[in-house]
């Protein structure tokens, strides 16, 4: 991967080639990634990836064009690539109209953050994983390495945010679809912490050995672990909290905004940049505040406003990326001790994970999806048996509204393990949710 000096050098050189009327905005993503993929505790695929992409936005007046280019890491070659892209952008600009929604950050703030690289030796980690698997059927993926997000502009702004993290996302399988999912992520490998996760998964794996039961359709009390709640909230995050979706009636929280739906007064949702692992600037150089409160006391407060939406809908940008999805979403905890959650559930479903959620009625925020991994039937506050997969189909206004009994008191921090195109620096901080009733349909 490249460092800040290299990136700044490219943009400084490019800036010198601009005409007097041009402005250049440049974002970058760079990473060095080691990965090892496991099946049945054996390595299926393993290797390393080095990549750097630069996003360029070349502006003259109100006309601009954009491009993304992969760098090679060779300094002369990369200067040539940036220069060639700028040439292409100028050629294209002759054919595009003014952009009424263009906005440039005119109050540049430069920042620099490079987290200490405390990553473990990869061979030691692979050995620890092999030892941890023992003779069990472990499947999953380990990724590790440094990742940086950057921004620079011809106006002099310079931002660099670099972290070095690992993420081991894994599952112990007992048989067929009976399995326990876990993850261990962070900045430095703590073998004792990993061992505790192995023990926890092993205990649940033991419970999965009991005869599974099929539950008929109907409504059941349920406890959603933070991981299960993350699946539902992840769906909402696609299009619910952004200004553009809300202003065009496409937010899944449409009924909350129109007063046709209600969330429980205990629900507080925020974009909590201060406590996440994402950079505090977005791709066009606008700074992110420490927190944007999205829902308070169950009522909508602010939306995530990208620069373009700010112009189009006459709002103030608040550091949202162009997709207006949260990067560091947090839900405030309640007053249930997580250790007491199963006892509080009494009789019902303990749901370790949900899966493949999607909207069955988006304007009404009705969501369907499946139970997955460790899901158990509980009676008298004790786990009785694993449950074969069930489909739920229920409204958020039930799940986090009229049927919400409470939230656990200590929200859990979850690193986003996604690697589409690049390793994510998103995260969430979520409690578990205890529901009086949840609707299952298949």
């Amino acid at each position, binding site marked *: 991967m490249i460092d800040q000096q290299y990136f700044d050098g490219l943009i400084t050189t490019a800036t010198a080639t601009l005409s007097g009327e041009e402005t250049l905005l440049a974002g970058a993503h760079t990473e060095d990634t080691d990965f090892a993929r496991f099946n049945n505790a054996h390595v299926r695929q393993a290797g390393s990836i080095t990549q750097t992409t630069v996003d360029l936005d070349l502006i003259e007046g109100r006309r601009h064009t954009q491009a993304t280019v992969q760098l090679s890491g060779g300094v002369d070659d990369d200067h040539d690539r940036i220069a060639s892209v700028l040439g292409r952008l100028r050629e294209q600009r002759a054919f595009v109209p003014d952009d009424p929604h263009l906005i440039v950050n005119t109050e540049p703030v430069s920042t620099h953050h490079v987290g200490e690289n405390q990553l473990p030796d990869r061979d030691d980690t692979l050995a620890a994983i092999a030892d941890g698997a023992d003779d069990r059927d472990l499947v999953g993926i380990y990724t590790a390495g440094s990742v940086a997000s950057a921004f620079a502009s011809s106006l002099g702004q310079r931002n660099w945010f670099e972290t070095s993290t690992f993420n081991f996302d894994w599952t112990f399988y007992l048989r067929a679809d009976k399995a326990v999912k876990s993850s261990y992520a962070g900045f430095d490998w703590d073998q004792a912490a990993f061992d505790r996760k192995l023990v926890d998964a092993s205990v649940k794996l033991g419970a999965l050995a009991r005869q599974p039961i099929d539950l008929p359709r109907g409504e059941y009390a349920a406890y959603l672990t933070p991981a299960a709640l993350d699946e539902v909230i992840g769906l909402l995050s696609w299009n619910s909290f952004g200004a553009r979706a809300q202003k065009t009636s496409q937010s899944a929280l449409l009924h909350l905004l129109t007063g046709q739906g209600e969330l429980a007064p205990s629900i507080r949702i925020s974009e909590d940049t201060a406590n996440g692992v994402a950079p505090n600037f977005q791709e066009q150089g606008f700074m992110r505040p420490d927190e944007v409160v999205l829902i308070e006391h169950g009522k909508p407060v602010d939306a995530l406003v990208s620069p373009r939406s700010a112009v189009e809908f006459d709002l103030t940008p608040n550091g949202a990326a162009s997709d207006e999805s949260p990067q560091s979403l947090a839900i405030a905890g309640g007053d249930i001790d997580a250790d007491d959650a199963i006892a509080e559930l009494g009789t019902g479903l303990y749901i370790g994970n949900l*899966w493949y959620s999607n909207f*069955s009625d988006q304007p009404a925020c009705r969501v*369907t999806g499946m139970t997955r991994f460790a899901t158990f039937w509980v009676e008298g506050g004790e786990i009785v048996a694993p449950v074969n997969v069930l489909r739920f*189909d229920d409204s958020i206004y039930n799940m986090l509204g009229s049927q919400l009994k409470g939230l656990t008191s200590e929200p859990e921090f979850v690193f986003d393990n996604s690697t589409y195109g690049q390793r994510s620096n998103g995260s969430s901080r979520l409690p578990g949710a205890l529901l009086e009733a949840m609707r299952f349909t298949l």
Partner: protein
Amino acid sequence: MSTVIMTNSADTLATRFSNALPAGIDEATLRVIDEESEWLAVTRGTVEPVHSSFDSGAMVTVWANGGTGIAATSDLSESGLRAALAEAKRWAEATASRAIAVAPPGLAHSGSYTSPLEQSWDAMGLSERIDLLREVEDQLNIGDRIVDRRASLGRRTVRSVLLSSQGGEIEQTFHFVYPMLAATAAANGDAQTRTYGRGSFCGQGGIEVLDRFGFRDAAPRIAAEAIELLDAPNCPTDTMEILVAPDQMILQIHESIGHPLELDRILGDERNFAGTSFVTADMFGSFQYGSELLNVTFDPTVEGQLASYAFDDDGTPATRQHLIQDGLLLRPLGSASSQVRAGIEGVANSRACAWNRPPIDRMANLNVEAGESSLDELIGGIEHGVFLHTNNSWSIDDSRNKFQFSCELGQVIRNGELAEKVRNPSYRGISRNFWRNLSGVGDQSTFAVMGTPNCGKGELNQVIGTGHAAPVCKFSDIEVFGADQ
């Protein structure tokens, strides 16, 4: 237009690769991807910034001492390739003792492929492309109840060069076009969206792809239907027959035939993420997947379909194969290495989405073959049912059994005739039961060739395009419901 990243000829790459090969390996491959794309959009009357993308990089794979190692780099110089090969060799050696053994491909043959191209993207100038989008986007603007509208057009040109230390050389060039239209109507706390096949009317080729599904003329109908749905009744709730249009069939094929037949899922590779499969290795050759009307092919030879190619990313020659014939399950979507692991014959479907992701078992073109019924015959044979158009929601369990899908638009069929349109049509079922309830298959006049541009799978995560073609199909005894159920 000027060139941004100079592409290297296959000969140049072969020379650098050969010079950079380390000693003490069984085989190595080099897969180089050069990609250029352009994305245009007009949204709510505003031309969004033109966005172009220029990507170039390589993945090397080394087989050594019983292990396999991978390294991906964007440095295609000889020294860059040498460093990547050394890194891949280190990975092979470090993981050999606990690796799932995968034999080297022994790639020694050569070949090439280029997408069919009638009218190149550049034959239509940038201003002309923007004008077209402005025109069709404006046609979506038919009243105050249309609260969002968007017309977009994307193209990608991808060149792939696959070289092997055994002398193999495969070069393929793909031209993709992705047109899209969408209109959202809203009133009284409801919103309804209609789209141009929800992105499925894409394919290989040039500007001619726009005319395959009438992109230039579709906007007025799409906008009118979005408004019509606002006032339409909810889809009725009942067990009934359904008629499924090709732009919903593609999703049904993708989720409940394609993914469960991927051999890497059956082998367990995807259990931590994408999931497993209700299909097991012993079912091939004996399991009745659907009714006798069901014929499913893996067909990378369909001209202009999104995932047509001559070789997969391991270099295996790609040929048309029946996966399901007369309802009987015959073979999986399993690439050469998966076939060896499972001991089952498969297809050439080892595919990667980019140079920085390793190939895995993927759908390519997965098609339901046409039958013999006309559309009128299919509709006329339904006493109580609904005609389902254009997917807008999909969910299925990790074994690919219990599914629930929703569509943008439904139209009631009553006593053999099309009746009123309905909103929020959904249906649910279990894969094997669903396909066994296939009770009618449309003829060639109902057949459409499409694709799904964004299929997510794999660890590391990958998004890739898959092709699907289907006729209109009829299914019996299906649980159908609307938004209030």
